[in-house]
């Protein structure tokens, strides 16, 4: 119970649809069973790419700040936004740099490649092993429950509105079965030239 990954709690999920991707997270920050904040988002945007970070809250902040710096430097050098697949490799190599003293986070990357228009999602373990997936990626203390809900609800080629409903129900119903996650959610629906961010209230208990 005192694993660094489950001190603060939190959940994150990403899904692929037809010419769109979705990424969602809960909002809880806790200390074991005590909830400290119900407004702690775990998704961060870096141009066209979205990064979800669950795990130890201090490392969620540290890693999100680190990638803000790295992606800004990339943008200045290359004079273009970073693509999702490049971001995935940047995350992987940055995490592996700390192989023997890792950041206690389980990142999720989601985005659409602006050149090809192809949806891209992937997940990582805390030392940077990439998990490419064609359907969905889950992470956080509710990952077991998320595997269940996603396996049950997801289907191929969902339109943006249907994908929103699917990912929202998957997340909301998963975190309701996890004591360390929940207290509201953020959902991003990413299309080629449109991003919709929605705030879900969720159960407040």
């Amino acid at each position, binding site marked *: 119970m005192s694993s660094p990954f489950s*001190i*603060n709690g939190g959940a994150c999920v990403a899904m692929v649809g037809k010419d769109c991707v979705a990424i969602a997270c809960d909002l809880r*920050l806790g*200390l074991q069973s*005590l909830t*400290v*904040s119900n*407004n*702690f988002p775990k998704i961060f945007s870096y141009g066209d790419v979205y990064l979800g970070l669950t795990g*130890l*809250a*201090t490392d969620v*902040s*540290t890693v999100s*700040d680190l990638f803000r710096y790295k992606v800004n430097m990339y943008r200045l050098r290359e004079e273009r936004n970073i693509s999702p697949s490049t971001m995935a490799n940047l995350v992987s190599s940055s995490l592996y740099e700390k192989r023997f*003293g890792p950041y206690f986070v389980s990142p999720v990357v989601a985005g659409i490649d602006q050149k090809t228009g192809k949806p891209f999602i992937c997940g990582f373990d805390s030392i940077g092993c990439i998990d490419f997936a064609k359907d969905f990626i889950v992470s956080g203390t509710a990952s077991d429950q998320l595997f269940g809900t996603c396996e049950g609800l997801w289907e191929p080629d969902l339109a943006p509105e249907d994908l929103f409903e699917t990912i929202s129900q998957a997340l909301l119903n998963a975190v309701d079965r996890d004591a360390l996650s929940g207290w509201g959610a953020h959902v991003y629906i990413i299309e080629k030239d449109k991003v919709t961010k929605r705030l879900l209230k969720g159960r407040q208990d």
Partner: protein
Amino acid sequence: MEVLLGITGKDFTLVAASKAAMRGATILKASDDKTRALNKHTLMAFSGEAGDTIQFAEYIQANAQLYSMRNNIDLSPSAVAHFVRGELASSLRSRKPYNVNLLLGGVDPITDKPSLYWLDYLASLAPLPYAAHGYAQYYCLSILDKHHHPDIDYEQGLKILRMCTDELKRRLPIDFKGMLVKVITKDGIKEVEYDDEARIACP
């Protein structure tokens, strides 16, 4: 058994800290000030391991003041909070990390918006409307959940703080020697007259 409390309101932030300086089971002092002013409108309250707390707080205070002198403008409460988090986070992965929990209360000098930041020794940062550290969390957060609103005025804020400190006196097994209360408004930081003589009887 150190108590830190913070409450924001319409145009102010209240920060309260227990006055007992403890070492094991002994109370060494009953008029301890566990707060440091970082600049004109940001106050930091701290608890944790004896040497670390003041060492870290005064290091942060010196750097915040150095910034103000160099740039002729104060860091905003949000900027200070993120600076402190960075320092604490890099300390966390050093040979001997600082064991310090913090509350940062402030009022933004430009927008006049009050703010409160909760930071623990792991450098988890959370901006909150009201916050506590240590055992006080278990007693006070539920009271604050029930009675706090974002637009309360100063008198209502003090009234809610009184409910919290009364509950702590009633339930904590050790006397924490009352609270030192400070308020931050757009005009700066002021100490508040706070009566802790009244005995609260346990039912």
